[in-house]
C-alpha cells in the first residue's frame, strides 16, 4: 500500500484530543470487554451519555464510508471464518492486549455492533451495548465533540483505520475457555501456532490428530466433532489457505464414508487417506517442486530469495547437492527475521550466502540473476499472497527484468482472489515491531511507549499480495506454469 494513502487515512481518523495514557495495555479495565474508553472518568461517562447528537453530526458521506468499511470487514471476516462461528466480540478494539485478556471471559457475541443483545443483559454487556450503539467508532466522537475536548480523557484508537477490520480477527493467547471437545493434540498444535508466526506449510498434519482420537464416535458424528477443533484452530490464528483446503477435503472425505462401514474400518480408511493426502500433497509435492526448481538454477547464477520458505530452502539445498555452482542472496525483514534461519541452513550446507534486509533490495537485485519466492497462497487471479515484503522484492526484480519464480504446492492454491493486501491479511500485535529492550541500556527504545504518544499508530501486517505481472513462473508439483494458470491447476487439484 502506498504510504501516502496510509498517512492520509491515519490522519483522517485521528482524534483531535491528545489522548491520555490512562488505559494503556493490559490494564484490566473494569469489565469493559469491549472497547475502550475504559477509564471510567466522569468526562467519558458524559461523553457516552451524549451520543445521539454526535451521531447526527456525522456527515452522510462519513456514515456511508463507515457502513461500507464495516460491511467489507464483515465479509472478509465471514470468508475467513468459513464454518467457524464468530468468537470475536465488539467493534473496534483499540487495546488488543486488554481485549485478549478479557476474551476468555467474554461469551461469544455477534460482531455487529448495532444489533442489540437483550439476552446478554448483564451490566457489563449493557455498558458495552450503550457504547457500541451510540459510539461505534469512538474517535469519530472525539472528532465531533470539540466542546468536550479539553476535559475528555478519550483513549486514542491505536488501530490503523484502513485495517480496522483485521483487528477483529481472533487471536487466542491462552487455552482457557476452550471447548472441552477439543483434543489435546489439537490444543498443542494451536499453542505452537501462537508461538510461531511462520505458518508451517504442513499444518495439515494436525488433521491426523483430529481423526485418530475420536474413540467411539460414528463417522457421521465426526464432522460435528471436527468443528470445535477447527474453530479452536481458527481462534488461535486465522486459518491458512492450505489448512482450509485440507479441511474442505477432509470434510468431503468424511461425508463420503458409507454409514454401513464398520467403525474400525472407516477409521483406518480415513487415516490412510489422510496419510496419503499428506504424502502426496506435501511431502512428494515438495520433493517434486524442489527437483524441478533446482533444475532452473544454473552454474554461475545468483539466486535471490526473501525470508524463508521451506520449498525454496529445499530447492537451494538440492541444487547445491547436485553440484551447481551458484550464490544466494537472502533478503530478510523485521520483525520476524525468518531469513536468518535460512542463511544458517544454507551456510551450514556450504553455500555462498549473502544476507541483507529489504532496504538493500534495489542494490542487491542488480547482482541477482533469478528470484525464488515461497508462497502462503496462490490466488485465482494469479497473484501471490505471501510474507509481507515479497511484493517489494518481486517488483524490484521485474523492474530489472529478472525472472521471478514462485515455488508453491498446489494445496496452497485457492479460488479466492485479492486485489490488494488490505481486505485479507493478518495483523501482528504492533509491539513486535519494537526493538527488544537491551540489558543495561540507559535510554529506553524510542518507541517503547508508543501507546502514549499521540497521533501515532503502529502497523505490522503478516502478508502482502504480489501482482501477477511481477511473477514469471509458478512451480508446482504439476509442473511449471505461468501465474494465469493457477485457477486451472486449482480445478485440477480439486478433481484429483
Amino acid at each position, binding site marked *: 500500500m502506498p504510504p501516502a494513502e496510509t498517512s492520509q487515512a491515519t490522519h483522517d481518523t485521528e482524534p483531535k484530543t491528545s489522548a491520555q495514557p490512562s488505559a494503556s495495555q493490559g490494564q484490566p479495565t473494569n469489565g469493559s470487554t469491549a472497547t475502550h474508553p475504559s477509564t471510567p472518568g466522569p468526562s467519558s461517562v458524559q461523553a457516552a451519555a451524549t451520543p445521539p447528537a454526535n451521531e447526527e453530526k456525522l456527515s452522510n458521506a462519513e456514515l456511508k464510508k463507515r457502513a461500507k468499511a464495516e460491511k467489507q470487514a464483515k465479509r472478509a471476516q465471514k470468508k475467513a471464518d468459513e464454518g467457524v462461528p464468530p468468537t470475536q466480540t465488539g467493534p473496534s478494539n483499540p487495546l488488543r492486549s486488554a481485549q485478549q485478556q478479557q476474551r476468555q471471559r467474554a461469551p461469544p457475541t455477534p460482531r455487529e455492533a448495532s444489533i442489540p443483545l437483550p439476552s446478554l443483559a448483564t451490566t457489563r454487556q449493557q455498558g458495552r451495548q450503550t457504547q457500541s450503539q451510540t459510539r461505534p467508532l469512538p474517535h469519530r466522537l472525539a472528532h465531533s465533540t470539540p466542546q468536550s475536548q479539553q476535559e475528555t480523557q478519550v483513549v486514542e484508537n491505536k488501530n490503523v483505520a484502513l485495517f480496522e477490520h483485521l483487528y477483529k480477527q481472533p487471536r487466542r493467547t491462552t487455552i482457557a475457555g476452550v471447548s472441552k471437545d477439543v483434543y489435546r493434540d489439537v490444543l498443542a498444535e494451536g499453542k505452537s501456532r501462537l508461538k510461531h508466526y511462520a505458518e508451517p506449510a504442513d499444518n495439515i498434519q494436525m488433521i491426523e490428530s483430529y481423526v485418530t482420537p475420536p474413540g467411539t464416535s460414528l463417522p457421521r458424528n465426526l464432522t460435528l466433532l471436527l468443528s470445535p477443533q477447527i474453530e479452536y484452530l481458527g481462534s488461535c490464528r486465522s486459518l491458512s489457505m492450505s489448512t482450509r483446503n485440507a479441511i474442505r477435503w477432509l470434510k468431503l472425505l468424511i461425508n463420503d464414508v458409507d454409514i454401513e462401514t464398520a467403525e474400525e474400518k472407516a477409521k483406518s480408511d480415513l487415516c490412510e487417506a489422510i496419510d496419503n493426502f499428506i504424502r502426496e500433497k506435501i511431502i512428494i509435492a515438495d520433493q517434486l517442486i524442489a527437483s524441478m526448481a533446482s533444475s*532452473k538454477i*544454473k552454474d554461475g547464477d545468483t539466486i535471490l530469495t526473501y525470508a524463508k520458505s521451506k520449498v525454496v530452502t529445499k530447492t537451494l539445498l538440492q541444487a547445491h547437492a547436485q553440484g551447481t555452482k551458484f550464490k544466494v542472496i537472502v533478503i530478510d525483514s523485521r520483525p520476524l527475521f525468518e531469513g536468518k534461519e535460512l542463511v544458517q541452513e544454507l551456510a551450514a550446507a556450504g553455500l555462498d550466502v549473502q544476507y541483507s534486509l529489504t532496504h538493500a533490495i534495489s542494490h542487491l537485485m542488480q547482482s541477482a540473476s533469478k528470484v525464488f519466492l515461497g508462497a502462503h497462497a496462490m490466488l485465482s487471479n494469479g497473484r501471490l499472497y505471501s510474507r509481507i515484503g515479497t511484493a517489494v522484492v518481486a517488483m524490484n526484480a521485474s523492474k530489472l527484468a529478472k525472472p521471478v519464480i514462485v515455488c508453491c504446492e498446489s494445496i496452497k492454491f485457492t479460488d479466492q482472489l485479492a486485489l490488494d493486501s488490505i481486505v485479507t491479511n493478518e495483523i501482528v500485535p504492533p509491539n513486535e515491531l519494537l526493538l527488544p529492550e537491551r540489558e543495561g541500556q540507559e535510554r529506553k527504545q524510542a518507541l517503547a511507549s508508543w501507546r502514549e504518544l499521540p497521533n501515532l499508530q503502529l502497523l505490522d501486517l503478516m502478508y502482502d499480495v504480489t501482482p501477477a505481472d511481477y511473477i*514469471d513462473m509458478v512451480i508446482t508439483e504439476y509442473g511449471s*506454469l505461468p501465474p494465469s*494458470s493457477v485457477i486451472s*491447476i486449482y480445478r485440477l487439484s480439486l478433481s484429483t
Partner: protein
Amino acid sequence: MASSAESPHEAGKQSFDIVSTYRSLLLSDPELTMPVAAIEALVSLLQNSPSLSTISEILDLLASNAEKLKQSIANPISLSAGTDLFQRYIINSLQRGGPAGAAGDFDAIRAHLLTNGRLFVARAKEARRMIAQTARQFIKVGSTVLTNGGSRVVSAVLQAAAEAQIKETGAPRFRVVYAVSASYKNSYGDGGDTAEGTATVTALRRLAVPVAMISEAAVAYSMGQIDVVLVGAEGVVENGGIISRMGTYQMAVLAKASGKPMYVVAESHKFVRVFPLGQQDIGVDQNVLNFTTKVEEVIETGLLTPKANFASRRIAGESITPDLDGSGYFGKDALHDSKNADFVDYTPPGYISALISENGVLTPSAVSEELIKIWY
C-alpha cells in the same frame, strides 16, 4: 523431455534407424513439419518392431528413439513437441482400458496404437489448413503485413488470405513486407534464390500480392507502415511465449513499441512443455555470442555461423554425422539456407497479441491451459 537416454531397449536399433527415417520423411514431403515428421517416424518405428511384447517395452523403445532423434539435431525443441505429445498420447490411450487399452491383448493394442498414430499425423497435417482459414481474417483489406522466417503456416495463411480476397474483390488487397535475415547475404553474396522464404514470396507475387523484401535491420524503419505482424513458431512454450527464428523477438519488441498487433500462427502440436526464463534458458546451446580475438575469424566465418558452433558441439558429443545441410531443421527449405537457419530466440508472451492454432484463437495465457488439458 521426460525420456531418458539410457533405455535398455536396443532391439529395434539395428533393424530400424529412426534418424534416417525421420530425415527421409522430411525430404520426401516439403510440407511436413518437424514434429509431425518425428511422430510419423515413431509410428513407423512401432510398425517395424514386431518383437515388442509388453507395454513398458513400447514406452522404453519410444523414449529411447525419441531421445536419439533429439540428439541428432541441433535444436530439438520443435521435434520434442512432437515426440513428447506422441508419447503422452500413447500413454493416455493405454490407460484408457477396454479392448484397446491395458486390458486387451497385445496385438490389438499395437494395432490400435498404429491407427491412432496415423490419425494423429493426419490431424496434424490438416491443422495448417484450418489455421489458414482462421488467421486470414486477421489480414484486413488494405492492410500491410510484416513477416519473417520460413514458416509454412504463415505462407499458407497469406496465400489463403490472397485467395479469399481475390474471390471477394477480384484482387488481393493487402501488401506483405518480408524481413529477410541479413546474414544470408554474408554467406552467399548473391542473395536471390537462396533467401529463406523465397518460395513464399514467389508464390505470393504470383497471386499478385505486392511483396517488399527488407533486411532485418530495416524492421524498425518500416514499422510505421505496418498494420499487423504475423509470424510462425518453432515451438510454443508453456507460458504462451514462442521459440522462433532468430530475429522474431526483436521484431516483437519493435511491434509492441509501435503498438502493432503481433499474431503467431502455430499448430497445437508445436505446443511444448518447455518454460524458458529467458534467452539463455531455451534449452539449446546456441553459443550465439562467440567472443574471439582472432582477426581472421571475421573473414572466415562471417557474422553468424551457427553451423560451425553446432557442428563442433555435435561432433564432440556424439557419433552422429553432423547435419550440415540443415535438413534436420526446416525440412527442404532449409537445405538451401543452412547458414542462418539454426538460431532461434524466445519471444516472451507479453509481446504476443494472440496465438492462432487449429483450435482457434488463443491468448498466450491459454496455451498453458491447453497443455494442462493434454497432460492431465
